[in-house]
């Protein structure tokens, strides 16, 4: 097996991985960086992000507001010191993106323009039409080409982390084009492998978003934190789950039920107004909006559609010109995939799994509990999203913490020493044999697609928008069963070059582990908070017992062990999480209290 040596290895060429690579290359250490990605970097799922990236920009805005929106949006399960760092560094990172060429939309005077987004008090979302992620990813990828220290391993698939002497010291990868397995030895490892929403059936994610890094770290004993919090995005295409960005509502779109009624006013988000109003109605946070759609369905006020019960996203009043200018991709998706013209017809939508709030547990500087291992981006839980992420916070997270990860990994690698290469190669060899064994011994009768589909369906039933113990238990049991069946999987293709069936089988293994962490974390959280909502006697938030992070620990024999850790609170005590008129009242109360505390 070939050994490749680098100072730092980064697994993941999405927004987070690229930003980390650039930061490491810009540090003055002159260290070499191996950037591994199972797809060409510009194919990473960051490319699909549509809406935008948030940073305090307007004079009437304030870091404090962004902090409050984020912490309240996360139902107080955020690490508040990390959120403080995040909001303080958001703008400079977006300016940095601008300097690198990102084509942000502009105002007439040439300054960057901002748009409204759900759960944000003031407009602060930078956007590049409705292809923000696409433009950010291509900008980062193209900029990364400038740095000779970054050596890319495009279309290399990571199968394991090499841990020796209690430290991460490299990764084992498959060169997909040949099937060759190599060991990339490094003194620091950064995981930036993205989310895991493919564990659900109806989802907005690309086929590559299979939780790989989460599973890899988890199997090495690093905890997965807050995995029960999966975000459902309210406006997805029935059948495929493709996303219609929240910017549709930010630009003024309505959500209506079968009577043409803007139903969100019945769920504490009103009163309605014609113009979009921040934190009101359609600009409420995603968990609340998705939950409202669920309730409409129970009341029989949704619309029948071949792919389920839908509501309508109505943008007719915005007119073709504005839609084409601000939401061109949405227009295209509606026209080409659904055969309808959003300027003249409402779009049928339903909620779909979208974002993994939880992930690999890290501290505020992206370090995991395993020395030498860092995690960043959607695969990580650095602590800013809590129980519900606000739209447009995660693209910024990629930049702010991508940079931190690059800096931290680079300073760690400077002082760390590798164990002897021979020892590491021995470890890597074992991994190599195991991974090859997977394809050679896979002559069972279980079909990859069957296990994958049964998993996704069961996750949707048990860990959907609303949850209860019996169904969650069924999902947990189902996952145990599927993990057993996975052992007798069949891989028809025994070849080496571009054996995508082999990769699918490995990814399925990752998915099953991550799914189990989600389901077991969910069933143990006996309260309702953010995106985790229960209907079996735990309908309220319970700060007494559950103002804590869930930590799921891998157990090769069965379901994960579940532990809890404290939430860091700096300046925002848990309060009432309200939006619309009720939200304004709650905020006034909070300010009054704060003022009183100051006066004392």
């Amino acid at each position, binding site marked *: 097996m070939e050994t490749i040596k680098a100072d730092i290895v980064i697994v993941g060429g999405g927004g987070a991985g690229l930003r980390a690579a650039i930061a490491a290359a810009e540090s003055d250490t002159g260290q070499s960086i191996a950037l591994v990605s199972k*797809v*060409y970097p510009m194919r990473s799922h960051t490319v699909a992000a549509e809406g935008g990236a948030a940073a305090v920009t307007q004079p009437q805005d304030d870091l404090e507001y962004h902090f409050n929106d984020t912490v309240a949006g996360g139902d107080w399960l955020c690490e508040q010191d990390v959120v403080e760092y995040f909001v303080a560094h958001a703008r400079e990172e977006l300016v940095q993106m601008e300097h690198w060429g990102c*084509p942000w939309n502009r105002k007439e005077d040439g300054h960057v323009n901002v748009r409204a987004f759900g759960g944000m008090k003031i407009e602060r979302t930078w956007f590049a039409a409705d292809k923000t992620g696409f433009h950010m990813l291509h900008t980062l990828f193209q900029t990364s080409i400038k740095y000779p220290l970054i050596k890319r391993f495009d279309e290399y698939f990571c199968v394991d982390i090499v841990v020796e002497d209690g430290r991460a010291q490299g990764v084992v990868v498959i060169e997909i084009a040949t099937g060759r397995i190599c060991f990339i030895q490094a003194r620091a490892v950064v995981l930036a492998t993205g989310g895991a929403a493919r564990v659900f059936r109806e989802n907005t994610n690309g086929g590559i978003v299979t939780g790989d890094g989460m599973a890899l770290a988890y199997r090495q004993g690093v905890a997965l934190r807050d995995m029960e919090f999966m975000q459902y995005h309210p406006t997805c295409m029935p059948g495929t789950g493709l996303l219609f960005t929240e910017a549709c509502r930010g630009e003024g779109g309505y959500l209506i039920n079968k009577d043409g009624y803007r139903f969100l006013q019945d769920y504490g988000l009103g009163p309605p107004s014609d113009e979009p109003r921040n934190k009101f109605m359609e600009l409420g946070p995603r968990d609340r909006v998705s939950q409202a759609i669920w309730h409409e369905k129970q009341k029989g006020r949704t619309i029948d559609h*071949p792919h389920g019960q839908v509501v309508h996203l109505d943008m007719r009043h915005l007119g073709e010109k504005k839609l084409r200018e601000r939401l061109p991709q949405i227009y295209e*998706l509606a026209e080409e995939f659904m055969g309808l013209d959003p300027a003249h017809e409402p779009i049928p939508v339903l909620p779909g799994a979208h974002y993994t709030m939880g992930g690999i547990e890290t501290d505020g500087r992206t370090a995991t509990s395993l020395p030498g291992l860092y995690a960043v981006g959607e695969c990580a839980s650095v602590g800013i999203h809590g129980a519900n992420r606000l739209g447009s916070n995660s693209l910024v997270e990629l930049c702010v913490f991508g940079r931190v990860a690059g800096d931290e990994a680079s300073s760690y690698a400077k002082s760390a020493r590798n164990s002897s290469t021979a020892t590491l190669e021995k470890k890597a060899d074992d991994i190599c044999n195991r991974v090859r064994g997977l394809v050679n011994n896979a002559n069972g009768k279980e079909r990859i697609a069957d296990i994958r589909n049964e998993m996704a369906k069961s996750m949707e039933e048990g860990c959907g928008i609303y949850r209860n113990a019996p169904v969650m238990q069924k999902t947990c049991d189902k996952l145990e069963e599927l993990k057993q069946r996975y052992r007798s999987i069949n891989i*028809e293709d025994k070849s080496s070059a571009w054996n995508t069936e082999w990769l699918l089988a490995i990814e399925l293994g990752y998915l099953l582990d991550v799914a189990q962490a989600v389901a077991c974390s969910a069933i143990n959280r006996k309260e309702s908070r953010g995106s985790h909502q229960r209907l079996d006697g735990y309908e309220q938030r319970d700060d007494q017992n559950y103002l804590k992070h869930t930590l799921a620990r891998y157990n090769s024999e069965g379901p994960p062990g579940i532990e809890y850790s404290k939430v860091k609170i700096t300046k925002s005590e848990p309060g009432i999480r309200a939006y619309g008129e009720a939200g304004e009242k709650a905020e006034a109360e909070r300010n009054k209290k704060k003022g009183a505390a100051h006066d004392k």
Partner: protein
Amino acid sequence: MTSNDKIIEIEVLRYRPEQDEKPFLQSFKVPFTDDQSVLQGVQYIKDYLDGSLSFRWSCRMAICGSCGMMINGVPKLSCKTFLREYYPGKITLEALKHFPIEKDLIIDLSDFINKLESIKPYIIPAAPRTLEQGEYLQTPRQLDRIAQFSSCINCMLCYAACPQYGLKPDYLGPAAITLLHRYNEDNRDAAKAERMQLLNAHEGVWGCTLVGYCSDVCPKDVDPAAAINRNKLNSTMDYFLRFVAPRGGN
């Protein structure tokens, strides 16, 4: 899937480098519903008929650029081409033309990646700006000059459409020239002179004979033919300016 599925015939040009001397056609019968894409068709084949069939895909929403293939001889994104459009006829799939086939529908695109890297696809400012100075100013009109040319998803359909690239693989080609043009036209950039040298070369814009098909097949309306041919004008000007002012005319 519902019970009233229709069945469509999908013929795929297979090539397995470890077994086959050359590609061959293999036919599959695939049940489908009207809203299913060609990509979903090949996914069905992989899941239920032949696990060894290989192809690239990810986003399913025409933005990642992975899933291009020749569909009945025309380069298209398989995720936004629908099976119903071909039914009851059959569909023939082949890896994108003009690229070496690695396996089945997978091409080797390293040549393009090298070209992309060669054109300096990043902002090279006249004077670097600090973060404290904030963003560069760029008016909506200035943005408009680059907006279209910066929406390329690197899907390679235009290369599969370009016979000149098939005949002369050294030709820089539509998407790379378009990206180069995008940076040249950006008011934040000052490296036009450096990049013009690539365009002036034989493998640059003059490799193009204006077949124009690249723009027809582009799924993102990038119009690479326009980017290339506007630069023929630029390249000619550049050439004459060098006669007038031998150091490159600024």
